[in-house]
């Protein structure tokens, strides 16, 4: 059953943090809440945990309405961005905390608590720091202790707020692979908040992309990446090139290209924007058709499996990003300042809403 969120809204003063949000997280599912800062993702997580109360709407945990239950009665584990370990307690005492504060009737015996803590510390591979204080641990170690502490009370739901946000890139990569493995070992529904699209796409079963208090799209990583619901999702999940134009009866003309846009069959001459990812751009020395764009190479970044090119259109000076394979790059023998022709292999057309501000996300 997992988590069900129905019509949750939350205002802080005049700021609308969440606007009628619906989301369902399946049993044992790992869902990422992805969005820029201020999109409401942390607020939503805190509402699931019971640390904030929604103005409207309800939260169901494992089929039971938990909206009016306190944070301690929801059976959730929460991992804070800055760990929030109890600084005056040892690692052992930190992890044991949730077990020690249980009412006497259901509290485990001291030796059982000790065993459980040691099992958890082994699970997070840190049983050798049991008697240290949080200040004596590295960031990655603290985060794993925070996770062990949250798991001690056997939560049905595990919530993580930017769990790797404060760590350096390498530790972050290691920890997220580890988190995925851990999630597959223990049976909990899991929601984690992140602003890093790579992290969200790599770790989660499904991604919920949020912007200004709304969930824009929910789907598997591949689904949201390949079929973004709107320009925001498209631009948030990676670099994009924009081509402005119009769409009419399923045919779009954006930039200098004619594109089939069957999904806009009913459009009667509306302004539209075409979006292409850098790796969907075809780069060549020769003009490949009347609709190729002429551009100058401004910058070449040859690190990694692909070579990234930054181009400037000759006609309107707009900047385009393109990505080519190393072989192609060598074959074309490209250098900064040279002229090339580019043409998108794939363009997705969205009718542009004049009320929305133009998007320009460069992640």
């Amino acid at each position, binding site marked *: 059953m997992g988590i069900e969120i129905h019509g949750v809204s939350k205002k802080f003063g005049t700021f609308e943090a969440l606007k009628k949000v619906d989301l369902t997280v399946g049993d044992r599912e790992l869902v990422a809440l992805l969005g820029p800062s201020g999109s409401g993702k942390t607020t939503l997580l805190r509402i699931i945990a*019971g640390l904030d109360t929604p103005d409207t709407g309800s939260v169901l945990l494992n089929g039971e309405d938990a909206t009016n239950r306190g*944070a*301690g009665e*929801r059976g959730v584990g929460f991992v804070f961005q800055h760990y929030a370990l109890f600084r*005056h307690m040892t690692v052992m005492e930190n992890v044991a905390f949730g077990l020690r504060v249980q009412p006497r009737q259901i509290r485990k015996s001291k030796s059982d608590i000790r065993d459980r803590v040691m099992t958890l510390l082994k699970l997070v591979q840190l049983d050798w720091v049991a008697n240290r204080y949080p200040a004596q641990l590295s960031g990655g170690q603290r985060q794993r202790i925070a996770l062990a502490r*949250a798991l001690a009370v056997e939560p049905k739901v595990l919530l993580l707020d930017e769990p790797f946000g404060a760590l350096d890139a390498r530790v972050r990569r290691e920890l997220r692979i580890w988190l995925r493995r851990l999630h597959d070992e223990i049976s909990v529904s899991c929601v984690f908040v992140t602003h890093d699209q790579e992290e969200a796409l790599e770790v989660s079963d499904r991604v919920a992309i949020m912007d200004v208090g709304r969930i824009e799209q929910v789907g598997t990583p591949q689904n949201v990446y390949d079929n973004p619901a709107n320009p925001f999702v498209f631009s948030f999940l990676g670099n994009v090139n924009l081509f402005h134009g119009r769409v009419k009866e399923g045919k779009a003309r954006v930039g200098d290209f004619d594109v089939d846009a069957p999904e806009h069959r009913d459009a009667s001459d509306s302004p539209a924007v075409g979006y292409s990812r850098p790796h969907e751009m075809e780069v060549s020395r020769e003009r490949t058709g009347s609709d190729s764009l002429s551009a100058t190479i401004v910058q070449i970044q040859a690190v990694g499996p692909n070579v990234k090119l930054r181009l400037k259109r000759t006609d309107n000076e707009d900047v385009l990003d393109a990505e080519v394979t190393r072989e192609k790059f060598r074959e074309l023998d490209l250098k900064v300042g040279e002229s090339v022709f580019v043409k998108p292999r794939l363009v997705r057309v969205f009718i542009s809403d004049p009320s929305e501000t133009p998007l320009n996300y460069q992640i």
Partner: protein
Amino acid sequence: MTGRRRQHAETASGKLIRWLLITVALVFLALFLVTPLIAVFAQALDKGWAGYWEAIRDPETLAAIRLTLIAAAIAVPLNTLFGIAAAWSITKFDFRGKNLLITILDLPFAVSPVISGLIFVLIFGAQGWFGPWLADHDIQIIFAVPGIILATIFVTVPFVARELIPHMQAQGREEEEAALVLGATGLQTFFRVTLPNIKWSLLAGVILCTARAMGEFGAVSVVSGHIRGETNTIPLQVEILYQGFNYVAAFAVASLLTFLGLASLIVKKIVEWKTTET
């Protein structure tokens, strides 16, 4: 070469200025702090230890000490509880009127102690708001022990809260939130998470509060009525002895307060050292 020489000259004059400033500071300290401190003890021991002991053992002085201890024993715990509650609500919750509360908290610092005393005379005095009602029920507050306790509470309100607020603000709410999610009750969260984190600044606040509660003169003087052996606290007793030209006794009693002041400074220093250590 000239540049080098100039630099050398500058450091020489820098040295001079440094020594000058340090000397000025030390002379100033010696003149205005150390000398009076020595004077207090010199005067107190003018007639030797026997005279000192005699002055302290005087029944009126002992009564003053007792009253001071009673006032502090009531005011300090009350203000400790209030200070924790105020600091807790200010730092862990958002509510309307929060800034007003922070401002009002400083009122006893801002208002002259004499005015603080007068406030209670105006409320509970014979001509005050509750004066007739209190007279009818034969309750005396002004010129009696309750008035002294009230005035002491009033002037020492901000100490604990003021000491706790910056510390609790720096610590944030996350540890408490973590405890709550883990199933701890409010009381468990307070005693197991919050209190251990604030214990040193709490101790510092309590010490400052105690020192002020015992040393307060102005406000207490207004509500006391100076009834010998009954409504005199240590500072008031010092004044009475001094005005009765009983210098040795006055300074002997004053030395008790001086000890208290020095002790609280030392303990506060230890506390500060402890808080920076963790």
